[in-house]
């Protein structure tokens, strides 16, 4: 039965590091430049050239290593991964093999609002290859991408569904952007994923034969490709067949994968330590700087927001990107009283995000700074204006940039919370509607709303609604 089988997925994700220059030479890294304009003698693999490692790439990789709780190797090693291909000018890729920079880390996923920790086998540094394009029978090589620094993040086979695999990608995407070590723009190939997929009988400890899926370049494709592969494997085992070890290429347009090479055709990469590069030493001072400069990470922040009384779904949205969480924290800090977080969260997620979405803007582009939102929330909270008026003030302040208090004063929309003044207004309203007052006293409860409306009308909506209710009951006698 198919229900007796469970899928097991491990991911290998390549993340382009946001350095100014290439991993081993001083040529600029940019996207969308004319083909082969970002090259130099080393990138071209000219005879006599030598690599010198970009220390910024090390720092960026270390941030990820620390943020994933990895063990950092004080002295790691670059190795040559050797194969022939036109997009690989030296005939080998400089990578790391048996002495990678990071091992034994983990990535925490939010599956819905539940945490799931996925172990990371390793995170290592390497250089990207160039890009081959084929036009009819002619092939072109663009080496602009060759030599761009990458980290490869390898997970343990602990993901159990395509949804989890996609969530792994989203979590990693969020983390590397959070740490500002990569733009991770999947459309530009800055985050790319290969998936190892296998199925096994439930309760079985050993992994089944795996296939490797290559060329998965969006969150949606991760899910589609893995789902498709699980289904393919289940069809095979259900029919009593055996899964062959092979590499398959995902074709997103066709929505299916095709075999790329079998185990027999697999390359022997003949790894060996790159003799042109000394061991990669992590300086103690660099490590100290990274540890001190590490921001509060998404998952600890999510948990802190839960402690602030924020609903899990809202907390999840607030940590969806660092700019959002930073906006939220900045707003909360203006007036850090108990309960303010929940209020600011509500205003942010409904009013602010609503307005930003309508404008097609990101939180970074918000015309309203967090201090302004905090001031507005405080004015609602202390009763200066009602929540309803607050929404109007928000809209105007968002549009014009005018301070909420100035808007309130100019429009004279302060809430009436003065008891004698409100009593006088209510008294007048009741006196002006004797029939209704009588009917209400006679048990027609539905008329209470009529009086609230009349008071609001008399005050242009400025009457404090809580006080209005209290005083109306008192005045109407029940």
């Amino acid at each position: 039965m198919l229900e007796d089988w469970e899928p097991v997925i491990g991911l290998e994700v390549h993340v382009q590091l946001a350095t100014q220059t290439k991993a081993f030479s001083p040529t600029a890294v940019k996207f969308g430049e004319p083909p082969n304009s970002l090259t130099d003698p080393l990138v071209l693999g000219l005879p006599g050239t030598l690599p010198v490692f970009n220390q910024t790439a090390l720092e960026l990789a270390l941030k990820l290593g620390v943020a994933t709780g990895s063990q950092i190797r004080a002295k790691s090693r670059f190795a040559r991964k050797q194969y022939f291909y036109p997009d690989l000018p030296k005939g080998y890729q400089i990578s790391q093999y048996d002495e990678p920079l990071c091992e034994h880390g983990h990535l925490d996923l939010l599956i819905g609002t539940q945490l799931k920790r996925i172990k990371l086998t390793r995170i290592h540094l390497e250089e990207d290859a160039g890009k081959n394009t084929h036009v009819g029978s002619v092939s072109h090589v663009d080496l602009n991408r060759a030599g761009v620094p990458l980290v490869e993040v390898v997970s343990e086979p602990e993901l159990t569904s395509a949804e989890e695999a996609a969530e792994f990608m989203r979590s990693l995407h969020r983390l590397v952007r959070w740490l500002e070590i990569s733009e991770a723009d999947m459309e530009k190939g800055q985050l790319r994923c290969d998936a190892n997929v296998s199925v096994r009988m439930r309760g079985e400890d050993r992994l089944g034969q795996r296939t490797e899926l290559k060329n998965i370049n969006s969150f949606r494709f991760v899910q589609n490709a893995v789902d498709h592969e699980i289904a393919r494997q289940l069809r095979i085992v259900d029919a009593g067949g055996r899964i062959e070890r092979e590499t398959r290429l995902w074709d997103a347009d066709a929505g299916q994968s095709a075999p790329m090479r079998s185990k027999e055709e697999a390359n022997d990469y003949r790894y060996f330590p790159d003799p042109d590069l000394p061991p990669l030493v992590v300086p103690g001072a660099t490590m100290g700087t990274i540890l001190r400069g590490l921001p509060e990470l998404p998952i600890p922040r999510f948990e802190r927001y839960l402690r602030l009384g924020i609903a899990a779904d809202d907390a999840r949205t607030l940590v969806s990107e660092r700019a959002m969480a930073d906006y939220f924290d900045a707003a909360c800090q203006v007036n850090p009283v108990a309960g303010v977080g929940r209020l600011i969260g509500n205003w942010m997620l409904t009013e602010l995000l609503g307005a930003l979405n309508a404008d097609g803007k990101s939180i970074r582009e918000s015309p309203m700074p967090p201090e302004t939102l905090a001031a507005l929330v405080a004015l609602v909270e202390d009763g200066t204006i009602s929540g309803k008026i607050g929404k109007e003030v928000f809209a105007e302040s968002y549009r014009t940039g005018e301070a909420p208090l100035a808007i309130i004063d100019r429009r004279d929309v302060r809430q009436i919370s003065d008891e004698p003044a409100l009593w006088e207004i209510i008294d007048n309203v009741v006196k002006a509607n004797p029939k209704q007052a009588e009917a209400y006293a006679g048990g027609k409860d539905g008329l209470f709303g009529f009086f609230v409306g009349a008071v609001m009308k008399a005050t242009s909506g400025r009457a404090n609604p809580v006080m209005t209710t209290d005083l109306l009951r008192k005045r109407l006698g029940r």
Partner: protein
Amino acid sequence: MSEWWGVAETAKRVRSGEVTAFRVVEDMLVRIARLDRELGAYLELDGDGARAAANELDRQRKAGELLGPLAGVPIALKDNLVTKDVVTTAGSKILAGWNPPYDATVVEKLRAAGAIIVGKTNLDEFGMGSSTERSAFKKTKNPWDLSRVPGGSSGGSAAAVAAGMCAGSLGTDTGGSIRQPAAFSGCVGLKPTYGRVSRWGVIAYASSLDQVGPLARTVEDAALLLQTIAGHDPRDATSLATAVPDFVDLPRDVQGVKIGLPKEYFAGEIEKGVRVALERAKTALRDAGAILVDISLPHTHLALPAYYLVAPAEASSNLARYDGVRYGTRAEATDLLSLYMKTRGAGFGPEVKRRIMLGTYALRSGYYDAYYKKAQQIRALIKRDFDAAWASCDVILTPTTPTTAFRFGAKATPIDMYLADIFTLSCNLAGLPGISVPCGLTSEGLPVGAQLLGKPLDEASLIRVGGAIEDAVGLRDRRPGGFP
């Protein structure tokens, strides 16, 4: 008249204005044109570039500008050193006609010092050989005996120096490729400590062993060239960030210097003429006040097998880039695999293919530990031998080679050829500096080289002791017959 001037002498005369750089270069080019048809030391001459550089120097001198320490000195470069706009082939058909867009660091440094690059010299393809017979282009003859090889792989550089077709030259040394041809051709050849000289722009053979160094007719000239090319280079991650001491005008006094004589090097088969010449060198050093000490380097016999794993393994990787896609020779082909196979099949010579196959085999998955890794462990043992030896001596003296220059075709099998380097390999495996200094001629009139090995970064002691050998038993002004 200027052709036999060495590095120091040429620079002095050009700086003083006694002769123009143009005259020096012109005379040298004429001499090369006269002699090199027979000798075959050069693969490529850069007459126009050399004359232009010389004219510029002469203009600078007239304008009263300060000239560099090598002003006007005609230098030959082994053709695995990359030269901007001067064809560089590494002696291989696969790079035939390659016109590099950049200069090696050593070339930049030579030019900055005022040296004039006259041309590129012949070598065994990619430095893989000990006779220069493995060049894809031509044979180079030994100026001391035209029926013999000049040694290799820097054979063209050695022959050019020996025949007065340059004031000095640069070679590269991976397993003896400077010292062995220096010994065969009667020159001084110095292999610096690994990391002392930048490898940027040196066409790689075996990256962890390759090192650039000078070949010259005197120890002083070699020191002057080393002074110019040594030093840290941020473009080479293996270059050492160590200050370069003064190598020029060192005292030649060897009073009290302890000279180790490793029994393993003197026990084996050594040609009689070589043995006799080495005895003369030993005696001369003892007479000059040096103390001779018997030492042992017990793992010497493992150097050859270790070298022939490490060097081919690295070479198999370093030579992967010659695929016909971006530069060099490209074979006609209809698909990618046949492009690779045809380009590399036609472009590489048999010795290069042999080493690529050896290296590819040694690095195969599952064999790495048994071969490459074990060879690296042997390197550590060899290095430890030397570390222990330094407790009892300051430099080590050995013959550079077991024989004098052999005849063309004499080393019929690869193994015979490999054995010609038996005394020079350990130095590279341990990353130490070494020098070969002529210590006289055999009765047949062939030069013999004495090899000195030094502590890491102690090229100065090699220059000092080498100078003493040169003073006592060197060839000094002896020139090969037939090359006045």
